[in-house]
């Protein structure tokens, strides 16, 4: 069933989105080995004909108890490791990331390519198909259930500065409700917060991570502020339907948080229509 945008979700005509990633982590299939990676690429190759190699990501789980750091993760060394493959679209704006326990679909702005963010509904529709293809492959290979144990959705926004070091505080003040730097001359900025959330039964199941950082646009001297919002957690069950439901919830949480922590002045620049 196609994903439908919730009626009450804030909407912007020109959101400062630079990259969106949606993904799942699942129990690896013991029978799969890296030599079979070409069979995985074959599932997606028609739309993603380019391939790149990256270092694999360590497994990540949201757990609850003591407050958690937002940025530290441990990577236990377990001997030989599998690559993380990037399967890229011809214009390299979209990519599928695959490693034996993860599948992600990213959209990102690419220098010189003129196209708008395709919106979540289109991305999740494609991703649903992509997970289904992978689940079918692993079920045939391993003769066992495909069990998803974490879901993740990230929105990365780039907010340009006015060009000088002095503009960091001024732009942050104009853009974010959560930061008041008016009494300071700020050179750079690094702000993080987490929020955990519960299902209707009061059970904790996910966390939102918010980061605001000073940065340079890579390959350019342009200074920017990066606002990164991630929702990660365990789906209610290990099924694909449950994971998609989590990602839809996560998207709503990200968009609502984006609207809550940013100012009306910034909303006018981004063309808020709802």
């Amino acid at each position, binding site marked *: 069933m196609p994903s439908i945008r919730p009626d009450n979700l804030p909407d912007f005509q020109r959101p400062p989105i630079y990259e969106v990633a949606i993904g799942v982590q699942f129990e690896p299939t013991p029978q799969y080995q890296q030599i079979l990676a070409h069979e995985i690429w074959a599932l997606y190759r028609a739309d993603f004909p380019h391939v790149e190699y990256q270092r694999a990501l360590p497994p990540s789980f949201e757990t609850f108890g003591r407050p*958690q750091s937002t940025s530290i993760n441990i990577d236990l060394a377990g001997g030989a490791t599998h690559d993380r493959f990037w399967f890229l679209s011809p214009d390299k704006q979209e990519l599928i990331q695959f490693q034996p326990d993860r599948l992600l679909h990213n959209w990102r702005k690419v220098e010189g390519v003129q196209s708008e963010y395709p919106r979540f509904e289109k991305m999740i529709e494609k991703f649903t198909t992509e997970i289904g293809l992978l689940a079918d492959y692993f079920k045939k290979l391993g003769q066992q259930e495909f069990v998803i144990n974490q879901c993740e959705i990230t929105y990365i926004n780039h907010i340009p500065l006015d060009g000088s070091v002095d503009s960091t505080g001024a732009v942050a003040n104009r853009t974010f409700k959560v930061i008041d730097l008016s009494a300071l001359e700020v050179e750079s900025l690094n702000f993080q917060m987490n929020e955990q959330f519960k299902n209707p039964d009061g*059970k904790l199941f996910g966390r939102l991570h918010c980061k605001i950082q000073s940065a340079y646009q890579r390959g350019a001297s342009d200074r920017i502020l990066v606002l990164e919002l991630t929702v990660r957690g365990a789906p209610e069950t290990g099924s694909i339907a449950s994971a998609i439901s989590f990602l839809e919830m996560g998207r709503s949480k990200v968009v609502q948080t984006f609207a809550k922590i940013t100012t009306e002045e910034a909303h006018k620049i981004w063309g808020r229509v709802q």
Partner: protein
Amino acid sequence: MTVSAFSSHDSNVLSLDLFRLRAGLGVEELSTGAGNTLPDWEAAAAKRLEALIRLDHGWDGHAAPPVSFHNAHFAFQMLQSICGDDAPAPAIVPGFDGDLQVEWQYGGVQIELHVLAANEVIAWRGSYDAEDEGEEVELENDFTTVERWVSELTSLFEADGRATA
């Protein structure tokens, strides 16, 4: 073992990361940032878990596999939700099916966490000497109860340390 910034995206920026701010929000946590040294229990647990995922198949003399990569990572993140910086390092022992058990034993109190799989843990606190059976709970990803158990054990551990110092 490496400690790294985790990212599943390519945000295409170079971070400056020069200093950090606090804002008056009702949020769960404000980060102390990357680059901190690990508490003693974290370093010990990471080293032990690395050894357990490198066990040979059949390490028990039969057909037991090593501790699974996912179970080891889940156990480590579970411990981060449970242990304060001063917590005593737990013993970590492999199971026969890729599972593992995390254990503390001090002052007559025993805490055992059996990690069957990610989001599937049986936690028990009691004493082998006591007549009652102790407390047992089945947990998924919320370890608030065990955090309290370990916090009480840590206080006991620290009080005894002060008394003997």
